[in-house]
């Protein structure tokens, strides 16, 4: 989605990412994808190390061991009235909406 940010902006939507870590792991991950300066992230990358927001959204972080393949990302689309209009709670690592699917869901809100 990061690569398609301008499409999302053109659709009038705001991307917000929530990371259940402290700043150091978050910066480490960004460096791995080539972002050296955290200021270069063009969307709010919110830190939730107490995992309280994640828990409210039913997203749990129970590290048995931190493997990418046990990661199940979750996506919500919240409309202008603050109502959840779309959710995708991944069952596997690769179970996530494509940018096109997200843009199509945003179109439906119009």
């Amino acid at each position, binding site marked *: *989605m990061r690569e398609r940010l301008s499409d999302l902006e053109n659709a009038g*939507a*705001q*991307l*917000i*990412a*929530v*990371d*259940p870590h*402290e700043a*150091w*792991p978050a*910066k*480490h991950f*960004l460096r791995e994808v080539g972002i050296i300066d*955290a200021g270069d992230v063009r969307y*709010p*990358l*919110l*830190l939730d*190390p*107490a*995992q*309280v*927001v994640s*828990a*409210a*959204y*039913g*997203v*749990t*972080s*129970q*590290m*048995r*061991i*931190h*493997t990418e*393949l*046990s*990661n*199940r*990302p*979750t*996506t*919500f*689309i*919240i409309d*202008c009235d*603050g*109502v*959840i*209009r*779309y*959710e995708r709670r*991944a*069952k*596997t690592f690769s179970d996530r909406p494509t940018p096109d699917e997200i843009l199509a869901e*945003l179109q439906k*809100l119009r």
Partner: protein
Amino acid sequence: MRISSSSLAPFCCVLAACFTQARGLCAEDASEPHAIVEAFTQTWDEAAWGPTQNPGRPGYMRPLDDAGWKARMKAFQALVKAGPESAGELRRVLQEGSPPERILAAQVLGFLRSKESGADLARAAEHDADPAVRLYAVDSLAMLGGRAHEELFRRLEQNEKNRDVKRHLAYARERDGAALDDTVIASLKQWDAQTIDSARLGQSAPDFELASLSGEKVRLSDFRGKKPVVLVFIYGDT
């Protein structure tokens, strides 16, 4: 009449379920550290955790119908709220508990920021047989702050075989002696446990305010009436 153990089994299961439920109800209000850990253990279904789908990467997948995470989250908060009083019990659990108990103990000790736990966490980070316990012990040891364990992190990073624990040893070094922030601990203590798993399709999104990586505070409801939000939780179940 001879009663075979197999004919008793269903009855025992029902009895065990009632017992667990009753214990669970009492434990909901438990504030004493030992009782909190006990309550967590009662609700944790270890057998439901399966191996990861990648044979080359040992580890566990959380069961899809897992209900244990809520009790775990509540135990996490309750133990942190109990404060220094929890530390003694958790240091014992870190030594003697089952793997899920040791993982929880290692995680909570970081949030308690109890310097006295340093030696216990260092021992777990180096010697625990379960990589997840080592990983949390490394995180928590780093959360205590200071540079006392820098040399240990460096040495363990060289010797650690598990790739994920190795990564966390790198994070521990990169935080450069910074302790876990007070605001993180406060947000866990103040968290309203009633809001757990409250996000539902077609309903109002639970509001929140979090700090971004660049330090700016963002509140979800600030976008209300302005634009739709695509909210992505980039890690889960890890």
